[in-house]
């Protein structure tokens, strides 16, 4: 059952490039940006050595990289690209266009802080900025998940009921440049798992010409956007279906999120990305001293599994959402908003607080996470919400 090809030491970027190599897309149009650049460099060397069939387009900007990807998938070719931070921000309008045109582009997206100030290190402000674009967002904790998520993302994005673009996120430098053991799979099995690309339409079908990207006036735009919402409601079911298949073929289990010691937990944190791994160590220690601590690690951020999140968290006494990005002048960070909203209608619901942490690559330590649980335990004991529901963790005030 566990079809293991090889356990090798790979950084997150190497794992992403390897997954792309084994997927062997028809086209890859990309532009370099730290810390995602290596993905394209490694992939370019695969192209140069004839190890893939991919047509590599060295776009002159990220905006053009996404534009070319759109032209390519619209022409019936499986296409991938990769970027980060300012690059994602530069292609922002094209993200909405890719989703609006139902083009299943899969993109490794390395989380890096948005300027200003300019910073090359990790936070989630980039992918959070794209959360309304219609892109599926799958978050990875480590290099293994980067590899596995990219492979599954192809199946999810290209599913006939879905046909939406998907980004697979992972933390810049912390994961992208850190080497970890990764169990890789056989390329043939991956090809069989993803199958050939069956596009919904193609510009190259010259006998049946179509117009892609027409203008809608006030009489049609709303219906078209309403129609775009439909596939998003089906994504989570497809994610589970693909995960079940993935477990069968490759032996590793995935879900719409990961629950860590949540069965009898009383206090829990909600977190995305590599911080979840550090939190596991804290939780293990707390459990040893009898604290019923747990964690909900977000894997699917868009669509947000609000029903399932509510069902898991409603019995908690206190929950802290850790956001690695700020939503300036909003009510706390983005994930905080989603979680609170999900729980609003639950008959039983915990006190929910928010910590914005780790901006610009600021380290989040075991002590930081422990302090969050200390706060949660205090809230659970008193049953009272703190005066400030959201605050910043690990910054010099």
């Amino acid at each position, binding site marked *: 059952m566990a079809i293991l090809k090889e356990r090798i030491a790979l950084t997150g970027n190497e794992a992403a490039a390897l997954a792309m190599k084994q997927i062997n897309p028809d086209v890859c149009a990309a532009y370099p940006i730290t810390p995602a650049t290596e993905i394209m460099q490694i992939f370019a060397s695969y192209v140069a050595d004839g190890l893939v069939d991919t047509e590599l387009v060295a776009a*002159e900007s990220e905006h053009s990289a996404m534009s070319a990807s759109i032209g390519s998938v619209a022409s019936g070719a499986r296409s991938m690209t990769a970027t980060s931070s300012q690059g994602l921000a530069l292609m922002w309008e094209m993200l909405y*266009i890719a989703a609006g045109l139902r083009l299943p582009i899969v993109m490794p997206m390395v989380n890096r802080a948005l300027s200003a100030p300019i910073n090359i290190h990790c936070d989630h402000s980039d992918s959070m900025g794209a959360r309304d674009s219609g892109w599926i967002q799958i978050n990875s904790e480590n290099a293994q998940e980067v590899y596995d998520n990219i492979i599954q993302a192809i199946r999810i994005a290209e599913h006939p009921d879905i046909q939406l673009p998907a980004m697979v996120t992972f933390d810049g430098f912390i994961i992208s440049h850190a080497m970890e053991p990764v169990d890789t799979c056989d390329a043939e099995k991956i090809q069989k798992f993803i199958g050939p690309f069956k596009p919904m339409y193609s510009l190259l079908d010259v006998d049946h010409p179509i117009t892609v990207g027409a203008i809608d006036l006030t009489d049609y735009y709303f219906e078209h956007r309403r129609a775009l919402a439909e596939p998003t409601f089906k994504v989570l079911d497809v994610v589970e279906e693909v995960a079940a298949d993935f477990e069968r073929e490759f032996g590793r289990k995935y879900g719409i999120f990961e629950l860590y010691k949540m069965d009898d937990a009383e206090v829990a944190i909600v977190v995305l990305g590599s911080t979840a791994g550090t939190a596991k160590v804290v939780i293990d220690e707390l459990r040893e001293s009898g604290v019923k601590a747990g964690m909900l690690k977000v894997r699917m951020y868009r669509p947000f599994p609000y029903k399932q999140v509510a069902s898991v968290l409603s019995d908690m006494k206190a929950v802290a959402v850790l956001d690695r990005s700020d939503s300036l002048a909003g009510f706390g960070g983005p994930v905080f908003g989603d979680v609170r909203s999900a729980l609003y209608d639950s008959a039983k619901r915990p006190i929910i607080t928010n910590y914005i942490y780790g901006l610009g690559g600021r380290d989040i330590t075991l002590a930081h996470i422990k302090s969050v649980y200390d706060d949660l335990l205090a809230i659970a004991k008193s049953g009272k919400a703190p005066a400030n529901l959201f605050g910043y963790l690990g910054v010099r005030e």
Partner: protein
Amino acid sequence: MANLKELVKKEEKFAPGHRACAGCTFPIIIRQVLAATDTPVVCGAATGCMEVTTTIFPFTAWKTPFIHSAFENVAATISGAEAAYRSLKRQGKYEGEVRFIAFGGDGGTYDIGLQSLSGAMERGHRMVYVCYNNEAYMNTGVQRSSATPLGADTTTSPAGKVKPGKLQSRKDLTEIMAAHHIPYVAQASPSHWNDLVTKAQKALAADGPAFLNVLMPCRLGWAFQPQFGIQMGRDAVNCCYWPLYEVENGKYKITYTPKEKAPVAEFLKKQTKFKHIFRPENEWIIEQLQAEVDSRWETLQKRAEMGC
């Protein structure tokens, strides 16, 4: 050379009934370009007059496959389609010949689209970029572009009490494209259909990127009566304001020399957007424009003579 009798027999790949202005000359340009080949083509357009008037859902005037994605990136978008075609053909997943044509207005080409145009040309994709140049952002109400000539009155460079319209000269994008050293670059006008169709044929036959800068007289923005679109094109060519030339593998050739070079003022007088430059205090603009036209024409002739 194109044969008119043969051209008119061809099936039109662009349908009538679209929403372009009465007297608009870009539909003529599209039809002339598409008539230049029998090979299937995939077309793209940047946001602009052409895209907005020909693809209002649920209608489309395009009988060829067509894509529009955004304003500044038709070159990048079509380069992606071309890359897909190359990849699929190479892998044996697609059979058949297809050509790729990107249409962009001067706004989406000279200004915001310059980067993606330059990138696509530099990468060597086998595609033709046709700039339909009406010398301003016409779709959105006549705002200036870097293709707008000196002295033109536009909504963002209005002729007022203190400023006499646009104070900058127009960029020479055709020369910029020639400097990319791509196989084929040319200037054309719908008024000279044979010249345009021949150039489109050469562009489509080029084994690499090709660029056509086509003057597109605009009755709305230039302000003339709808029946004079083609005449305006002729006038522009005859005063050498819009020389018809080509650069084929680096070799310059003037493809049409007016029998008598008319003064630029005659061409400008026919357009309401230049009404104000005929006031005495603005005479310098006409002089400068004439000087510019003369100098560029002279340089062009020298280049053509030297063949470089």
